Structures are given as structure tokens and as C-alpha cells.
């Protein structure tokens, strides 16, 4: 599925909810059901620190595709991490670099991505994009 299609699917899912409580319950369910990262990758190196909650991000690259796994110590952050992984993981560096994150705004979770929230999510998105750029450069230089 293309990134655009995944994003549209997510927007449709969230449009089912009128109530903020239901939205968060849905996020919490998504967050609860996934560890998303092997314990051995929950290292200092993979830690994206926010002062509110922490996020671990691991990337691997094969056949021009980047696979991301991630986790967080806060459940709501975990839910949003799950959404981001759904969108970004399993795509080429170019697709990831071009992808926009305004869908978070559309589904009403913009506040969680405000830099002032310091929950590691903004840094996580930057890190995802950086990984994409790095792998793209690596590939073009045939390293």
C-alpha cells in the first residue's frame, strides 16, 4: 500500500470518532497491542529523548526498503508511534522523504507533535526522515 493510501485509511478510521475520549481509547488500544521493537534495540543509541516521554527507534534497510520498529514508555505516545510506523515503515527512502505528516493534524492529534510537548515524537519524525536521507545517500554512493 502506498503511503498516501495508508494515510487516507488512518484518516477514515479516526473520522469514525466524534468524541475525543473515543479517539484516545483507540490510540491506547493501538499502543497497548504492540511492543514494536525488539528489546535488544532499546538502547541509548536508539533512544530519542523528550522530557515527557521517551521513544526508541530502530531502522533496518534491505532491497531499497526501510523497516522501522519503535516503542515508547507512554501509552498515548506509543499509539501515535504505531500510526507513524504504519505510515513510514516498509517504503523507499524517497517515499519517506516526500511523505507529509499533516494527517496527524487532520485526525486532531496535532498537539502531540508540537515541539513544546517534548515527548520525543517530533524528534522521531525528524530521525525517520534523517534515516531515509542517510540510506538514500548511502545507496547513491554505492557504499
Amino acid at each position, binding site marked *: 500500500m502506498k503511503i498516501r493510501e495508508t494515510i487516507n485509511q488512518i484518516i477514515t478510521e479516526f473520522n469514525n470518532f466524534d468524541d475525543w*475520549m473515543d479517539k484516545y481509547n483507540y490510540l*491506547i488500544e493501538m499502543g497497548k497491542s504492540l511492543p514494536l521493537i525488539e528489546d535488544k534495540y532499546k538502547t541509548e543509541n536508539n533512544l530519542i529523548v523528550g*522530557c*515527557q*516521554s521517551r521513544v526508541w527507534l530502530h531502522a533496518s534497510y534491505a532491497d531499497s526498503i526501510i523497516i522501522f520498529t519503535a516503542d515508547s*514508555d507512554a501509552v*498515548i*505516545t506509543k499509539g501515535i508511534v504505531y500510526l507513524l510506523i504504519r505510515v513510514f515503515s516498509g517504503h523507499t527512502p524517497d517515499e519517506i522523504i516526500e511523505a507529509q505528516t499533516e494527517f496527524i493534524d487532520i485526525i486532531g492529534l496535532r498537539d502531540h507533535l508540537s515541539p513544546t510537548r517534548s515527548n520525543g515524537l517530533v524528534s522521531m519524525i525528524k530521525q525517520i526522515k534523517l534515516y531515509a536521507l542517510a540510506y538514500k545517500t548511502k545507496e547513491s554512493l554505492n557504499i
Partner: protein
Amino acid sequence: MYTKLTSGAIRQDFPILSRQVYGKPLIYFDNAATTQKPRQVVEAICKYYYEGNANVHRGVHYLSQQATTAFEGVRAQIVTFINARSSRELIFTKGTTESINLVASSFGRMMNEGDEIVISAIEHHANIVPWQMLCKEKKAHLRVIPVLDNGELDMEAYAGLLNQHTRIVAITHVSNTLGTIIPVKEMIATAHSLGIPVLVDGAQGLSHMRVDVQDMDCDFYCFSGHKMYGPMGIGGLYGKEELLNRMPPYQGGGEMIDQVTFEKTTYNELPFKFEAGTPNVADVMGFGAAISYIDDLGMENIGKWESELLQYATSELKQTGDITIVGEAKHKTCVISFLINGIHPYDAGTILDHLGIAIRTGTHCTQPIMDRFGIPGTMRASFAFYNTKAEIDELIKGIEQVKKMFR
């Protein structure tokens, strides 16, 4: 007056308290971060800009002289409020952080390699980082008074840290995270017996209790207007005159000088020596109005009601179950840090936010405390005299809702 607090009638003076967030009444429990301002403070600032704005101190015209009189009038008002000896001992700053940086920079210039600075394990970053920067610059050493499990300082360890190399002790009056009231008077006496001066970070102290700097005998006392119902961007540094006279200026510029030539410049007398540039006159007016407001209400009444709120909230939280209170010193102000067992503070805080309840979550600019207690952060409810028991009831209901959502 006291019934104005118990009945919540005092809230009428604070327009912001009747607003809504997410369609729900605002319950503002983040007073340790900043307090709300009564009408009188906002009007004092507006009045200054509408009717009395002029630069102070050197003008010969009417407006300038009026502004100067009013400005120096607030300085004298604060001198009385904290019982300093004279206006020479009260320096206006941007706030507590700048006050501490001023002392670290200026007093710090007189320090040497191998000197020691003593702080505590529960300091706000504002009372850690300036000293770390100074230690790095001067090759001096930072010594830290340990904190006990209940949030009180280890007083025996404190005495043991003081020696002939100690140049200054810098401690908080009240912990913004744990609510602990530190026995600063006793700690100052101990330091003074060895000739060591003490700086007190009064950001969380001055709004909750009567402070008498002569009785406390502190060498420096730092505070912020916005933590005590005054505007942001203004605060003060109290310093003993003989110390301030020995210290070199902090920032250079206009106002703090006496004579300027390119060969040599001499400095103004206290307090102006430490007040470079045009002061924040409007917010000084606001600060004065805040202090008048506190005086009219009575600090004793404020302290009594805040103590009732603290007791009520603490017992209600404990009764709720699955709550760990972080910081249970014998003497506290109305700040409660807590955790809902098994639930991350960020998760809980997000839900409470949508219920209109403003608490703070995270490390509260005291990361060392979190490391010490092995926690990622806390939820912090910090009260002011305009909070009510009914609001605390809503917090408890909110916590029950959070527990349901995350279990």
C-alpha cells in the same frame, strides 16, 4: 477575608479562572509554574502605559519624575515586604533565574581554582546550571547535599560538606517538585559559623509565606514576580549591602554608571550598579500591585487556606488508591507530586488536560530529582489561594477516569 478564600469568592478578581478549555471549566493547578494575575495587577500595567509611561531616573520632565517616584516606590514596598535594610539591597532583575545568574557571575568572579560550591539534590535547574558553568570556568567543584526518601535534605551530610574551600551555599527555600520547605534559617546559621555566605532560591517561597531576610540572615534571596500573582519578566535579588558592594557589576550599560570616558568608567552606587539599561517599569508597577494584593488578603490567610488545600488533596489522593506521592516532608507548601501506579505521567496528564484540568507532568526542571527517585517524571498539582476543594474533587474524578482508560 478568610471566607473570601474558603468560599471561592476571591476568584472574581481573576478573570481567567472563569474561562473554559475544551468546553470545560478551567481547573488551574499549575501555580508553581506560574500564577494567575488579579485584575488589579493587569490594570496597574495598563494604567502605566496609558497614563504614565516614561523612562526613569534621569529625566527632568514631569512624566519621568512621576515614573521614577512610582518605580522607586515599588522598590521600597518590596524592601518592606521582605524586611531588607534599605533600597540599596534590592535589585530588580528579570526573575529568579537572572538573579541567580547575576550572583554566580558577579560573586563568582571573585572565586578561585579549587573553591567549592554547595547546592542540594533538589534544586531547580536555575540553581544548578549557573553554578556548574561557574565551576567549569573557575575549575571549582560542585558539592551536592543528598535528599532523603521523604524529600527532606540530609542535614548531617550538609554539615559534612562545608569546609575551608566552600565559597557559597545555594539552596532552594521550597522545592518546586516535592513541596519541601527547607530549613534555610538553620542551614544559613551553620554556613555562617564557617564564614560561608548563602544564596536562597525563593521562587516558590515568597508567595506562600512571610519572608524576613534579616531574620533568615540569608546573604542573597532570589524571587520572581510571576510566581506571586505578578507579571512575568520581573523579579528581584535581595543581597546584603556589604556583599553587593564588593561584587563587580553584572552587565554594563546605561543607568549603572556614574562617569563614562573612554579612559575609565566608574559605576553607580547600589542598587543601580546592577541594573543596566532601561528597567521594566510597567511590570514593576504590576509587581507592586501584586504585593499590595497579597498584603490586603493577608499572608497568614493565604498560608492557612493553602495548608487546608494541601491536606485535603493529600488525603483525597491517598484514599483514591494506587497513588504514590513523591515528597512527603513534614513541612510542605501546597505542591503535590504524585504518580498513578503503572500509568505514565504523560498519558495521565494528557487525559486530565482534556477534562479541563491543568497540572504539570514531567521533570519540572529538576531532572536530578527524577534520577534520584528512579522515575521518568511526576504529575504535579500545585495550588494557589484561589483554588477550591471542589476543584480537587474534580481532579480525583479525573484520576479515576484515567485509571479506567489505561487499565
